[in-house]
C-alpha cells in the first residue's frame, strides 16, 4: 500500500483549511513565482525546447514500452558490476529489505539522500520502528524532519516554510538530533545553510550505511544517476561502506544516450538552472572508491497498476521535476499538504489514483483538484498530458458509481469535458458555452458564496463527497482561460 499522510482528509476539506493559512499562501506564491521566472529564462535559451521535450518523452516511453526487457538488462548489468538486486512488490517488502540489510550490518543510524520513493514507502517510520535512526541530509528534508512536518513539494519539501520559521526550527530542534544550531543564528539563508552544513558534517563523517533513490537507472550500462545540489547526495553515495538504493521500476531508461535529453530537461524544468550543481553516476561497486557493498531495490508498489492503464501510463514518464506544481494555480493556492501524499500537485492528482486504484475517498477526490487549465502539460518536460489523464480518472471515479439510477451532474460534466479535451480546438467552444450557461445557473442559484459569487448549490450522488466539503461555484461568466490570460493566472488580480 502506498504511504498516505495518516488521517488526511480528502482534498476539498484539506484545501479549504490550507486556503485559510495566509502565511502558507504567501510563502508559496513567492517561491513559485521565483522559480517560474528562472525556468522560463533557461528554457528560452534552448534552441529547440519542444524537440527536446519530444525526445525526452520518447526516451521514457520507449523504456516503458519494453519494461520487462529493460528491467532484466538492468538487473544483469548491476549484478555483473557487483551490486545485489532485490525486488519488492510493495512498500512493506521494500522496507523489510532495507531494514533487514541495516540490521545485518548492526547499524543504529543511516544517512539518507532525498528521495521521493523512500517517502512514498514510509521507510523512515519502518527504520525507527526497528530502532534505527534515519537522518535526512537534504536541507529541505532536514527542515521537514526537524520540524516534525510533512513534505509539501517534490523538489523543495519545505517550500511552505519561510526563513524565520526555519530559524526557529533549527534553534529549537537541532540540539536533539546532534550538533546544536549556533546560538546567534540569524535568518539569512546563508547562515541557515551553514548551520545545516555543520550539523550534518559529523553525521557524514561517521556514516557507514546510506540509503538513496535514483533519478534514472540505465539498463544498458547498469548506471544509477542521482541529481542534486548540495553535495549531501555525494556524501551519502561516496563515504559510507554500504549503499542501498530504492528505485521505482519506472526509473529505468534503455540506453546511456537516453540520458541526454533527460539531463538537459530536468535541471532547467526543476530548479531553473542550466545544470544542477552535482550529478553522481555509478554502476555497481568500484574497487577502492565509494561503497564496497551496493544494493538496489527495484520497487513496484502500484507502478504496474498505473502501467496497465492505457491512458494513465504516461504518468510513469514523470521525472519529478516539479514544474507542474510550480505552475499550477490550484497548487499555488492550496499548497502540497492538501493533496495528502508525497506526490502533490498536478502529477500527484493523477499518480496517486493510478498507483493506488479507485475506492479510497481521499485518492478519488484528487482528480478533481484541478481546473483543467492545461498549464501543467505546457511545462512538463516529458509531455505528460495531465489534463487528459485527469479527465480519464474522473470518469473512472464516476464509473465506480454506475449502479446509480440517473447520471450525476458530475458524470455528465465530465463526459462533456473528456469530449472537449479529446480535441483542443473544442475547448474554446465549450468554454464559451459554459460561460453562457453560467449566466443561467447564476440566476437559478440558491445561495451566494463569500465574495458574492453565485453558488450552484450542492450536487447529489457520488459528487456529494466533493461538493459536501466545497461549495461548487456556478460556472463563471468569464472562462478560466480568459481569466488566466487577463490576470496572468491570478497573480495580477
Amino acid at each position, binding site marked *: 500500500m502506498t504511504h498516505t499522510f495518516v488521517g488526511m482528509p480528502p482534498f476539498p476539506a484539506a484545501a479549504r483549511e490550507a486556503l485559510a493559512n495566509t502565511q502558507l499562501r504567501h510563502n508559496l506564491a*513567492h517561491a513559485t513565482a*521565483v522559480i517560474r521566472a528562472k525556468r522560463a529564462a533557461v528554457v528560452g535559451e534552448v*534552441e529547440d525546447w519542444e*524537440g527536446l521535450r519530444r*525526445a525526452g518523452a*520518447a526516451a521514457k516511453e*520507449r523504456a516503458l*514500452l*519494453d*519494461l*520487462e*526487457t529493460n*528491467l*532484466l538488462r538492468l538487473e544483469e548489468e548491476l549484478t555483473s558490476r557487483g551490486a545485489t538486486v*532485490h*525486488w519488492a512488490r510493495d512498500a512493506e*517488502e521494500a522496507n*523489510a*529489505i532495507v531494514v*533487514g540489510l541495516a*540490521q*545485518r550490518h548492526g547499524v543504529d543510524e543511516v544517512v539518507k539522500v532525498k528521495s521521493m520513493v523512500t517517502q512514498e514507502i514510509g521507510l523512515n517510520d519502518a527504520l525507527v520502528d526497528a530502532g534505527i535512526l534515519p537522518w535526512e541530509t537534504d*536541507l529541505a528534508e532536514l527542515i521537514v524532519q526537524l520540524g516534525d512536518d510533512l513534505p509539501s513539494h517534490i523538489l523543495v519539501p519545505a517550500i511552505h516554510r519561510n*526563513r524565520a520559521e526555519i530559524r526557529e526550527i533549527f534553534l529549537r530542534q537541532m540540539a536533539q538530533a546532534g550538533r546544536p544550531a549556533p546560538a546567534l543564528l540569524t535568518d539569512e539563508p*546563508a547562515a*541557515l*545553510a551553514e548551520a*545545516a*552544513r555543520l550539523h550534518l*558534517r559529523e553525521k*557524514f*563523517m561517521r556514516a557507514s550505511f546510506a540509503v538513496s533513490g535514483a533519478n534514472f537507472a540505465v539498463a*544498458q*550500462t547498469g548506471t544509477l544517476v542521482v541529481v542534486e*545540489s*548540495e*553535495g549531501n547526495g555525494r556524501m551519502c553515495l*561516496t*563515504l559510507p561502506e554500504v549503499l542501498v538504493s530504492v528505485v521505482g*521500476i519506472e526509473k529505468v531508461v*534503455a540506453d*546511456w*544516450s537516453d540520458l*541526454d535529453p533527460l*539531463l*538537459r530537461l530536468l535541471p532547467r524544468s526543476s530548479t531553473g*538552472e542550466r545544470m544542477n*550543481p552535482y550529478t*553522481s553516476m*555509478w*554502476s555497481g561497486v*568500484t574497487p*577502492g*572508491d*565509494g561503497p564496497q557493498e551496493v544494493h538496489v531495490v*527495484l520497487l*513496484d508498489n502500484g507502478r*504496474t497498476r498505473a*502501467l496497465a492503464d*492505457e491512458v494513465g501510463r504516461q504518468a510513469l514518464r514523470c521525472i519529478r521535476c516539479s514544474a507542474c506544481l510550480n505552475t499550477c494555480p490550484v497548487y499555488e493556492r492550496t499548497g502540497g499538504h492538501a493533496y495528502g501524499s508525497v506526490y502533490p500537485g498536478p502529477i500527484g492528482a493523477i499518480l496517486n489514483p493510478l498507483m493506488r486504484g479507485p475506492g479510497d475517498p481521499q485518492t478519488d477526490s484528487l482528480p478533481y483538484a484541478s481546473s483543467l487549465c492545461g498549464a501543467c502539460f505546457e511545462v512538463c518536460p516529458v509531455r505528460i498530458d495531465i489534463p487528459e489523464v485527469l479527465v480519464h480518472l474522473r470518469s473512472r471515479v464516476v464509473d465506480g458509481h454506475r449502479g446509480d439510477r440517473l447520471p450525476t451532474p458530475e458524470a455528465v460534466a465530465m463526459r462533456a469535458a473528456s469530449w472537449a479535451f479529446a480535441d483542443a480546438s473544442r475547448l474554446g467552444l465549450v468554454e464559451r458555452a459554459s460561460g453562457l450557461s453560467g449566466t443561467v445557473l447564476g440566476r437559478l442559484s440558491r445561495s451566494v458564496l463569500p465574495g458574492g459569487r453565485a453558488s450552484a448549490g450542492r450536487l447529489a450522488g457520488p459528487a456529494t463527497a466533493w461538493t459536501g466539503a466545497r461549495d461548487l461555484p456556478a460556472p463563471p461568466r468569464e472562462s478560466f482561460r480568459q481569466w488566466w490570460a487577463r490576470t496572468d493566472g491570478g497573480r495580477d488580480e
Partner: protein
Amino acid sequence: MSEARGAEFAKWSNEDGTGAGARGEILGRVRAALSDKGYAAQRATAASAAPAPGAPSPTPAQPAVPRRSPLSGSERLELFAERVADYRAIVERCAAAGLEEAVRRAVALADSVLVAPGLPLDIPGARVDDGLTASALDIVDAVVTTAAVAIAETGTIVLDHGSGQGRRAITLVPDRHVCIVRADQVVDDVPDALERLDPRRPLTWISGPSATSDIELTRVEGVHGPRHLHVILVG
C-alpha cells in the same frame, strides 16, 4: 538481527533465493500491464532484433534529439568560461606554460593541499592521496585535480575519477577544489559529453560550487560539497 526479522528478510531477499517470488510476480504484472493491443503492436515493431549485450536497444521511430548549433573552438571556450563564472565559481584561462604558476596561486592561501595520484604537476608541499579517511580529508584545505570532460553550454566539468582526478571523496570533502581543464576536453553540450564518457566508471558532474535553493528558493552557494570551485582552463 532477531529471528523473526531474519526470517522476514530471508523471505524477501534475492540473496537468500526467495526474492524470486517478488521478481517473478513483478515481471508478470509488467507483461500483463502491457498486453493491450496498441502497445503489443508497437512492441512487435520494436522487438524485431534482440540487442546484443551492451548494444543500444532497437529504436522504434525515435525522434532525433535536437542539438545546439555547433560552436567554433574559441566560442566554445569563451562560453564555457562564462557559464562556469555564472555559478559564481572562479574561472581563469592560462597557457600551458603558465599552468604551474596558476595552480600555485590558486592554492597559495591553503595550509594543506592534496592532489590526486597521477596529477602531472609539481605542487610544493602537496600531499598525494593515499586513502585518507573522511575525517582526515575534512581538515584538508584544498584539492587539485584534472577532469575528464567539460561542457560549454552548461558550464559543467565531469570527473571520471581516473588518473589525476582521484577517488570521489577527495574532491568532495575538502572545501576548495582546483580543477584543471584542457581546452581539448571542452565539448559543446551534454550529448557530446555523454559520447566521450565511459558509463562504467563512477562519474561526478560538477556545475559550480555546492549550492541550495531550499530556503525560499534563494540560491545560496556552499553547503556540503566544496564551497569554492576554481577552474583553470589551459590552452
